[in-house]
């Protein structure tokens, strides 16, 4: 199989078109399954009562927010190293969803923290790092928005993603350290061993978020491909056919 063929935007456009329904339906079914497990199978937590059920979106959203950033950095690095156009397009297609999941993780963290910690917001290491991650996403999206030239935008955004990726672990550990020095916000969500069924619900929801991200990113990348390849014959033929 020739993998390079799939790196050509035209081939990838059609491949993505065929994949999107599978991932979209997969995301829907996994969500239904995960929420069923989360709300109807998983028992009440003896410490947190029902409030812990926020975990089924909070943790998957937080995982995705970090994972998407790493994938963006990966595509950016590939694009910079091998000059492949499609990798930059993938990085751009992922960013808005990554920012969305970061926001969801922050929002649900606050709504979980209020009943558990008694405050909407605590400067806990994880919440703070997540907030900084949101700043990084916003910065990258703003940089892309400010640069009209496609080639420059692709590369500048990828460089920023990369330096951010180097910085994220440093930020996390510095915030964590800062947090242990400033006592008062060291309350943790009950770290007791998690019930197997709760873990199952959480993992199913994480897969649902994953499938959703792939589906949405593929839709977005198809749009970007059309925009950028609008002068090629295949896009002209495609648009003419669809009228």
């Amino acid at each position, binding site marked *: 199989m020739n993998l390079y063929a799939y790196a050509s935007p035209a081939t990838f456009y059609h491949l993505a078109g065929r994949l999107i329904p599978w991932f979209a339906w997969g995301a829907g079914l996994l969500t239904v399954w995960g929420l069923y497990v989360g*709300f*109807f199978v*998983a*028992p*009440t937590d003896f410490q947190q*009562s*029902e*409030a812990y*059920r*926020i975990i089924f*979106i*909070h943790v998957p*959203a937080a995982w995705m927010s970090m994972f998407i950033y790493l994938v963006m950095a990966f595509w950016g690095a590939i694009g910079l190293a091998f000059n492949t156009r499609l990798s930059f397009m993938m990085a751009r297609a992922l960013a*808005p*969803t990554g920012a*969305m999941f970061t*926001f*969801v993780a922050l*929002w*649900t963290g606050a*709504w*979980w923290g*209020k*009943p558990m910690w008694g405050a909407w917001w605590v400067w806990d290491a994880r919440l703070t790092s997540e907030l900084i991650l949101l700043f990084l996403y916003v910065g990258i999206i703003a940089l892309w928005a400010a640069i009209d030239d496609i080639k420059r935008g692709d590369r500048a955004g990828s460089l920023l993603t990369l330096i951010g990726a180097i910085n994220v672990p440093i930020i996390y550990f510095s915030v964590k350290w800062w947090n242990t020095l400033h006592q008062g916000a060291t309350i943790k969500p009950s770290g007791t061993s998690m019930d197997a069924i709760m873990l199952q619900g959480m993992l199913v929801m994480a897969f649902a978020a994953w499938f*959703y991200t792939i589906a*949405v990113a593929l*839709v*977005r990348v*198809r*749009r970007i491909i*059309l*925009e950028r390849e*609008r002068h090629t014959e295949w*896009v*002209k033929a495609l*648009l*003419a056919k*669809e*009228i």
Partner: protein
Amino acid sequence: MEWASWSDFWAMGGYGLYVWGSYSVTTACILIEVILLKRAASDTRRRLRRMQQWEEL
């Protein structure tokens, strides 16, 4: 099954506000993203088609 009735389910053991506050905003975020994406996709196609027709003239 944990719930005796629907009202029991919505109450979430007294934490209904927090649980549904989280889930509703998450749902809203996803819906907004999907709607914006659909609209942007059709906008792009329409715009490109118009540009193409204009070029052919």
